[in-house]
């Protein structure tokens, strides 16, 4: 149990008052930037990078890790309360979370998100300690054909969130796929759908699309209804999670963790796909009341994706620390921070700088606990945000959405794109098109495309490479099953009925 001793030493490093303060600053900042649409943990860490000139490494990384975890958690708050996710990874949370809030269960939704994040973060950090080498082997063995199969599986899995009307769901999905095409094609360097506007060459950031379609679209829609209907009365409800809420939450937390952690470790896995898969899994596994509640605010649909989201953040640290491989934007900037200190993450880091690595791992546990302590008592307080008169509330949302999106690239073109997408989001709401599939298409489409083309290029055009690896084969079979099972079941029922 060598790791355990090192971890205890790590706690000794992390538990100094100064480092605790850095952890507190980190999680607070992180929660804040998670709440603000547009500004994410990656940008925050990048802007704070210069502190590496003045602060010892252990303290800096403790703060950065706090920002990362805090950001992953913070995004859920606005998703749940206002249907305006601050990050694309908390988009799925809005689906059920906001419905819960409208039924007066905002406090429960926020609580299950907070506790789920804590549980997932803690378990995933534990896995980071014991399973890092194994997970890394698995992550490296993933080739382009496997990623392609994974994207296909995610597509089929989330087809269940395409809303009741398949046509409308598909229309929304195609919109997202089209937006995903904008920009320089990575493989050939050619510009697509950029209309000659140089600011579009890098594509449209998924944050702008999520904020535009969700936050601005929602604000415009609410504004358009304001004088048509009497204000929707949001019941306040109970303040804490009841026994039934706990009973329904713990399994989704664990399943979300199991999905999120390995995905975080995959370069290109990202935090979004595990939230999609977790939502799809919870929806399929739901029985009884839960099954009826899905689509109207089921707690499982908040607990699972939130856990997956946070677990993926811990998963990201596995390849970063063991191989120096950053698998998310935040991780890439943390790698730059390591290099500022003259440290090269990789196999040697654990041997050469055990105090730093284990101090950081320990601080993850501490940061997680801090997040829970900070956010759980606040859940009922946050829930009261819904009582703010809506003109003020949504004016604030529009302001912060614009601020956050402008902060991404300091580009006014982004603001124009944001407003156009806001109008599109309004139109989609007005005509009953679901918004989530568009963002899903935007995230999965480019990934599926680039990985498919990479796999084919490496295989010199041989289509059989797509099923050559066992992982890809299994994933594609699962996708086929997900598509065909309902059909087969219908067929079987018909046959039996005869």
């Amino acid at each position: 149990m060598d790791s355990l001793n090192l971890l205890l030493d790590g706690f000794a490093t992390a538990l100094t008052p100064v480092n605790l303060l850095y952890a507190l600053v980190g999680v607070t900042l992180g929660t804040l930037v998670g709440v603000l649409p547009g500004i994410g943990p990656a940008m925050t860490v990048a802007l704070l990078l210069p502190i590496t000139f003045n602060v010892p490494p252990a303290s800096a990384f403790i703060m950065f890790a706090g920002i990362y975890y805090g950001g992953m958690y913070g995004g859920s708050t606005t998703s749940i309360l206002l249907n305006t996710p601050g990050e694309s990874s908390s988009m799925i949370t809005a689906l059920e979370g906001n419905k819960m809030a409208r039924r007066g269960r905002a406090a429960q939704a926020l609580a299950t998100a907070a506790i789920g994040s804590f549980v997932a973060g803690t378990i995933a950090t534990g896995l980071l300690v014991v399973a890092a080498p194994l997970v890394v082997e698995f992550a490296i063995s993933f080739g382009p054909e496997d990623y392609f199969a994974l994207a296909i599986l995610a597509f089929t899995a989330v087809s269940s969130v395409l809303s009741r009307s398949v046509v409308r769901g598909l229309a929304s999905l195609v919109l997202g796929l089209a937006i995903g095409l904008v920009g320089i094609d990575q493989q050939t360097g050619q510009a697509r759908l950029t209309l000659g506007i140089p600011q579009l060459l890098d594509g449209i950031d998924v944050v702008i699309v999520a904020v535009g379609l969700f936050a601005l679209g929602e604000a415009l829609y609410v504004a358009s209804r304001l004088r048509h209907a009497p204000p929707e009365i949001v019941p306040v409800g109970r303040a804490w999670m009841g026994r039934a809420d706990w009973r329904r939450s713990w399994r989704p937390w664990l399943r979300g963790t199991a999905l999120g952690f390995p995905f975080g470790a995959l370069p290109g896995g990202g935090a979004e796909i595990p939230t999609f898969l977790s939502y799809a899994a919870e929806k399929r596994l739901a029985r009884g009341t839960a099954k009826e509640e899905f689509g109207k605010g089921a707690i499982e649909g908040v607990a699972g994706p939130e856990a997956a989201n946070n677990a993926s953040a811990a998963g990201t640290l596995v390849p970063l620390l063991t191989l120096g491989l950053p698998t998310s934007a935040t991780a890439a900037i943390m790698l730059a921070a390591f290099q500022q200190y003259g440290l090269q993450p990789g196999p040697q880091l654990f041997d050469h700088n055990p105090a730093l690595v284990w101090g950081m791992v320990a601080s993850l546990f501490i940061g997680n606990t801090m997040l829970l302590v900070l956010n759980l008592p606040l859940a009922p307080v946050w829930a009261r945000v819904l009582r703010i008169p809506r003109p003020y509330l949504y004016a604030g949302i529009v302001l912060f959405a614009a601020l956050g999106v402008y902060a991404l690239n300091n580009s006014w073109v982004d603001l124009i794109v944001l407003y156009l997408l806001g109008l599109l989001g309004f139109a989609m709401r007005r005509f009953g098109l679901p918004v989530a599939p568009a963002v899903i298409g935007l995230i999965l489409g480019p990934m599926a495309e680039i990985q498919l083309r990479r796999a084919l290029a490496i295989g010199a055009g041989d289509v059989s490479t797509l099923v050559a690896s066992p992982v890809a084969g299994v994933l594609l079979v699962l996708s086929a099953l997900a598509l065909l099972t309902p059909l087969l079941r219908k067929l079987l029922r018909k046959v039996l009925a005869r």
Partner: protein
Amino acid sequence: MRLRRLAVLTAVIASVTAATACGAGSDTASGTSALRIMAPAAPGGGWDQTSRTAEQAIKSIEPARKVEVFNVPGAGGTIGLAQLAGDKGNGGVLMTMGLVMVGAVEQNKSAVTLAEVTPIARLTEEYEIVVVPAESPLQTLADLVAAWKADPTRISVAGGSAGGTDHIVAGLMAKAADIDPKQVNYIAHSGGGEALNALLGNKVSIGISGIGEFAEHIKSGKLRSLGITAPARIPSIESPTLKEGGLDVELANWRGFVAPPGLDEAATKSLTDLVTKMHDGQAWKDAVAKNGWVDSFQTGQLFADFLTSEQTRVKGIIAEMGLVS
């Protein structure tokens, strides 16, 4: 209530970033003019890092001067370049740039080219390295050339963005080996280790990147170097050069400063002097050593000529690879 809290927290974030950005805390404006350094990329990348290091280094030699870094990301730096070009005659702005921008200008058919700006100085450079996975049957550069000539499509080359430095190296190597550069089966990856992952997983034949990104994995034996793009062997890594292996390819991924167009001689000289002073200071030397950069300082006409020759060379190879849109 939430809004008030948000406002307060925004103020906190702003003050924290402001406080850290100001580092040494030199607000007293005492005659010396303020300097703004544009990093034409998002925070965290190489240009951003160079800009922020320069900011600190200038502050250390001239504590009274106000120095500020700002980011104008997008399209390989050409968005920033266009903005700089519009700032005619402004002697208080520097833009960090490098080889990648030379390629991006060509590839994106940018309306503004580097011929318009005022060259100030080249600062650093980094050589590229060509590697194979440890399991690869290719032992030497000669093995690679033989296999490549036999069937160019079978050799998949992993590197950074299409048209970037890594891709240019691949094109130059193919050309030197008498292979049509259009035939290179280049697999572009976004930055941040994606290409490294493909190599560690033995999914691609060869990989090209800056030495820094692969060095650790060559030391640990997971990757094997076939050659570097330096004119001669360098101490920081144990590897032959491409030239030794028979491919006449030499390329340095350099970074430097340019200033807006239309500067008078006095303004150009004052910027050049400031950058020279920064380069001679201890803070810059320390940062160069810490980041493993190679100091390749060059100013005035020398740098202007170098910039022109790089534009010609990159334009040529990008056209030969069929990359101009």
